[in-house]
């Protein structure tokens, strides 16, 4: 379904993404982890065609989406939803309008400019908001909502696009643990119930372990790990983040649950023995 072949992006002298290759069959929940500047965001932005690749191919159902131009590229964007860390909604427009932006590529530009939507579009947007539990926010301005609610609006906009693939760039990095869990649960639900592929950049290991079917680790633009969450041991995590023995993931865990799963307990014990 998705094949990434030797994708590279060079910024000046820096190879932000360096010869990245992997393939995903079927609607998996793929997590990409790595420290800041590892190339995670650049890769997602290339998939969504917000950033151009320097070389390589990304095949989706056999079609190279990196080669698309103009209206065809925008057509691809409309079928490949992106969720951002800072939500990237239009703050002064109401929530339902923001959700309906998901289909603007398939509607007349003039009608969209004047915010004239068909009855079906409006009802569908409201249904999606209802499914995510925020239908009563529909007439409010997006800026009036809390961060967690705004991110759910962004997910609703993504669902409005009816995409095969949903890309999420650090979707919970600006949210508190409670909202982070709601947003991740929502993404997982979409992944399981609708059968849509989700590729999410995550910056916490516990989230990656809890939600992902598969985890890809990146360091300095290269892939350094590709496996199941179970294979993601503390040693592997140290390798991905380039950390030494003092690295202790329990210290930065953002899970709302107490760190009682075995990995975190092991990490804590290790930390205690080092201290």
């Amino acid at each position, binding site marked *: 379904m998705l094949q990434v072949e030797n994708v590279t992006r060079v910024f000046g002298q820096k190879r932000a993404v360096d010869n990245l290759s992997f393939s995903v069959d079927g609607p998996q929940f793929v997590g990409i982890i790595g420290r800041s500047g590892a190339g995670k965001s650049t890769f997602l932005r290339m998939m969504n065609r917000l950033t151009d690749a320097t070389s390589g191919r990304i095949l989706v159902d056999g079609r190279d989406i990196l080669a698309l131009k103009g209206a065809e590229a925008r057509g691809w964007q409309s079928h490949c939803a992106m969720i951002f860390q800072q939500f990237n909604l239009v703050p002064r427009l109401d929530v*339902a309008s923001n959700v309906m932006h998901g289909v603007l590529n398939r509607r007349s530009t003039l009608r969209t400019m004047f915010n004239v939507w068909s009855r079906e579009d*409006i009802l*569908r947007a409201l249904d999606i908001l209802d499914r995510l539990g925020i239908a009563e926010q529909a007439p409010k301005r997006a800026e009036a909502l809390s961060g967690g609610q705004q991110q759910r609006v962004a997910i609703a906009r993504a669902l409005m696009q009816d995409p095969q693939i949903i890309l999420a760039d650090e979707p919970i990095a600006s949210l508190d643990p409670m909202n982070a869990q709601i947003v991740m649960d929502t993404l997982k639900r979409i992944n399981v*119930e*609708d059968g849509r592929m989700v590729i999410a950049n995550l910056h916490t290991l516990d989230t990656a372990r809890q939600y992902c079917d598969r985890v890809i680790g990146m360091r300095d633009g290269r892939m350094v790990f590709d496996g199941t969450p179970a294979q993601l041991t503390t040693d592997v995590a140290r390798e991905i983040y380039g950390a030494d023995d003092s690295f202790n993931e329990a210290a930065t865990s953002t899970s709302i649950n107490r760190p009682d799963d075995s990995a975190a307990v092991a990490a804590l014990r290790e930390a205690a023995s080092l201290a």
Partner: protein
Amino acid sequence: MTDMTRPAHDLTGLDAIRHDYLRMTRQRQLYTGVLILVFIVLMVAGFDTADSRNAGGFWEGLNQIFDFPADVISEAIEKAANLPGHIMGALPALIETINIAAVATLIGCGFGTLFAVLGTRGLALWPALIPVFRRITDILRAIPEVVIALVLIFVMGGGPVPAMVAIALHTAGAMGKLFSEVNENVDLRPVEGLASVGANWSLRIWLGVFPQVLPNYLSYGLMRLEVNIRASAILGFVGAGGIGYELRNAMTFGQGRFDEAAAIFIVLFVTIVVVDQISSAVRHKLTHGGQ
């Protein structure tokens, strides 16, 4: 959406939301429609009034719009050999015009900065006097440059100094307004940080505000330079010297000296393009200079 599984109990709630939202969109569309209608009516009515008051009428005059440019261009092409000479001849006057504009922009931006800082809420040294400084900039903006220049020329006699003063006063008013709008968007946290280590007002502004606003100030200032070159050329028409004076002479002589007018237009156009290119390069460097 493929499957829209929804618990049955909140159907009434959703129905209410649907109903309300649809009603709201209908209302909004009605307002938009009325607004567009008002806009069109105003356009048509305003145009009609203007057209009926006009001496010649718009539609009759429309085909004559290009008569003057056509005359100038055809004569300039006829006497193309004279153009380089005329362009060289216009250069000293051009330098005078640019000088007037540059000095006026510098002085005007200086006073504009002062008015802006003193007239911005949250930054002002004397908050009670904010309205005073705001009104001063309003007054400076309200009086057209030509009027100030004419009064000053009457008092001081013709020459570049009255033009410079006139443009500087107007620039101070305009920049005071623009700069204070930039100031309003400033992040106050560094200012608070400086206050916490005991900085006085001038240091708080100098270290906390100026580094944030300088790129914007400079970009507005460079754009103002462009505007002022045009203004200084126009003031030449009323006796302030510079290229405007030459242009007026060439144009009022009419047929026969249009080649000279064309040369001056070319010189002015090239000047504006050069200033624009330089200022956009500088602005680009300022805003993306870090990378």
